[in-house]
């Protein structure tokens, strides 16, 4: 995004201007609080959520530093979506504290809601608007002036390769196109912190590369991206910080090198952390394959 709104000065002081390389991250990461200059992007304490008998999020404590590209990984049902929903104020926790940029999400929504951008998962958009109308709608709801919204919307649609479909109703978009328009809607007001739930799901390789470019440029300016994903290679190549979740708890978090530890790749470290390495599919499915009778 070439156009920088006023929020940007505020952000520049709270985070390093350049995205640190993986090697140099190790230094400050020794102190878990990250950059001592400003408050962490997200601070979670004792976060709990139960759906009936099912404990979806089981007392999470987590501090995520500002200005980083942060990956939240975990197997299906680990509680990533639930956590992100509670952190962004879309789902009320049973108990616990969430602070974004030092502001309590539930007590100080004015400070929080203008600072964050959200791409939730499993929630719809206003699909009976065209892509451009949707951006115009959300931008104006965010209180941006109309001209500015239209300008930014045009640029975002261009960059995300949606210009050709900008006048098509979102209900006629494909899965990947919806992700992209959702991403555009989340970026429109130039938030300090971006929460993306599985932003690369259903996105083709070319668009994924585009999204990576946009997000990398965005974090380079000092903003924070927190996204959930199942694709370890992607997380490994994009993120400088990861948090691993399983069964509603944080199994590990920190700079990527630290989480990876001695394992050859993040994938191996992940499988070890969530305890799935020995759960091979070999023994129980011995009837499967070979083209034999039934």
């Amino acid at each position, binding site marked *: 995004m070439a156009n920088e709104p006023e929020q940007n000065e505020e952000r520049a002081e709270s985070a390093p201007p350049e995205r640190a390389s993986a090697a140099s991250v190790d230094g400050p990461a020794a102190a878990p609080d990250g950059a001592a200059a400003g408050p962490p992007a997200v601070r979670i304490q004792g976060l709990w959520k139960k759906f009936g008998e099912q404990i979806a999020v089981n007392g999470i404590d987590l501090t995520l530093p500002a200005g980083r590209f942060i990956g939240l990984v975990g197997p299906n049902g680990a509680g990533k979506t639930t956590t992100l929903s509670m952190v962004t104020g*879309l789902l009320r926790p049973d108990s616990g504290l969430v602070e974004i940029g030092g502001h309590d999400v539930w007590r100080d*929504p004015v400070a929080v*809601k203008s600072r964050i951008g959200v791409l939730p998962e499993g929630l719809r*958009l206003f699909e009976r608007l065209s892509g451009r109308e949707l951006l115009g709608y959300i931008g*104006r709801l965010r209180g941006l002036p109309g001209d500015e919204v239209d300008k930014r919307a045009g640029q975002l649609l261009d960059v995300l390769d949606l210009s050709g479909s900008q006048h*098509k109703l979102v209900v006629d978009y494909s899965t990947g196109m919806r992700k992209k328009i959702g991403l555009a809607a989340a970026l429109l007001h130039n938030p300090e912190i971006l929460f993306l739930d599985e932003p690369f799901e259903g996105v083709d390789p070319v668009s994924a590369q585009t999204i990576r470019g946009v997000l990398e440029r965005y974090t380079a300016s000092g903003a924070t991206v927190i996204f959930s994903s199942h694709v370890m290679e992607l997380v490994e190549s994009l993120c400088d910080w990861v948090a691993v979740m399983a069964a509603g708890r944080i199994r590990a978090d920190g700079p990527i090198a630290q989480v990876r530890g001695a394992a050859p790749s993040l994938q191996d470290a992940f499988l070890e952390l969530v305890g799935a390495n020995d759960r091979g599919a070999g023994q129980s499915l011995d009837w499967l394959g070979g083209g034999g009778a039934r």
Partner: protein
Amino acid sequence: MSTESAAVAPRPAAVPSPTAVFVRLKLSLLRNGLRQSTGRTLAYIASVIVGLLFAAGAVLGLIALRGNDHVGALVVLLTGILTLGWAVMPLFFPTGDETLDPTRLVMLPLRPRPLIVSLLVASLVGIGPVVTLALITGSVIAVAHGTAATVVGVLAVVLVVLVCVSLARAVATASVRLLTSRRGRDLAVLSGLFIAIGSQGVNIAAQKLGRPDGLSVLEPLGNVLRWVPPASAVSAVEDAGHGAYGRAAAGLALTALALVLLLWWWQRTLTALMTSPDSSTLQAVEKDSARRGGNGERGLARLLPDGRTGTVMLRTLRYAWRDPKSKMAWATALGVGLLVPVVSSVQGNGSIYTAFSASALLGMQMYNQFGQDTSAFWMVASTIATPRDAYQELRARALTLAMVAVPFVTLVVVGAAAFIGPWSDFLEVYGLSLAVLGALLATGALSSALFPYSIPSEGNKNVAPGQGAIAWFSLFGGLLIGSVLCAPLLALTIWLHVAGLHHLLWLLLPVGAVYGTGIAELGLRLAAPRVARRLPEILVAVSKG
């Protein structure tokens, strides 16, 4: 199917006419359908027998009515209903006839005109056309008196059957794309409304016909329909019997013209369908890109206020038009709100107070505002940080509603005063209507905050499973509280009447307008902080289904 398929494939030696091919294809499909299973065979034979029995009974009934004063109107109406049936059948049973599925014909090297002729002839084979033929023949026999009428009658039977069949084919062809696209699915949601209104119409009609001398009520309708093709051909038979040859010729000509137009339309859509790729989405793009041009919406956007208010209003208006569920809710509210006074005045026991239905039904549109957003409500929730934001959001929605409701209520009350009367009650009813509208906006805003529920986007249901109680409770509770809120005004009205202060009744208009506005504002102000506090709870409630 081996012999049949050999017959279907064009032989190199002597290329058979496509008509013969299609007729044989149709017959073999019928035969193959019979061969598949005994159950199916039995069902098919049963339906044929029932169809033929029904047709025979109807024909005998029609012939028995020959000479009745109103039989002319009856046969005209019967033809009209039959035609309507042929027109809507392909929409409800899109896969009725495989020979006629144009997408299966794409590969055949056929020119449009012979193709149309052969398809038309092939469509005449089947139980439907036979029943139609029988009914129309019976109708013609019922009204044909004299040689000239008989000649016209033969022509009329042929024309009517051809019009019916080609109408069905043309509609089917035109709707192929529609029924496989999103727009088609949208239409399916609306079909419930059509069926509801249609059944209401049938209900009223049956009641009227059931009365002694019920057939006479058909006359006015028959007078209109007799000039509408293909019924005009049937009425031409009667005219010919009376010696009105000019009218008879005109009736036949109208139907013939309709047939030509239908065939032309069918051929055009068929050609378009067969020569363009399956592009339901491409078409949507083309159509939607028309939206870019400075059309009405742009102008509308400029008229609306700036900021959240205008933005939300514009979105709500777009949804009222584009979202099938919103559209249906609006159509129902507007339609029923208008229908209640109209029907009651037609039945002769009308009162100007039936005009309240307009403000009641439109006011109820304010209920469950956020349920109408479905889970997209998260976009609203993530931009509401203060009660003030929530207030603006609610107020914008109420304003949109008022923008439609106030003129509509005005119209209905004026109409009720004009057609039912008396005009002397106009001002008080108008004032009370505005008060009712305001009270419902207020309770609607509050119940949107406190009792939200999901509206499933597919199908005809308007409440997600398990939330029916909330929906009924909020609607009826709201209506009850709304009427309690209007009690002071009602009391004032009654008092003015009882005390004989009729010259002061006009006061109710300004008082009602101010009261309605005030109570709506109060409701919005009460609801706003609750919305702001309950955002996650509302999101969960509206995200089901």
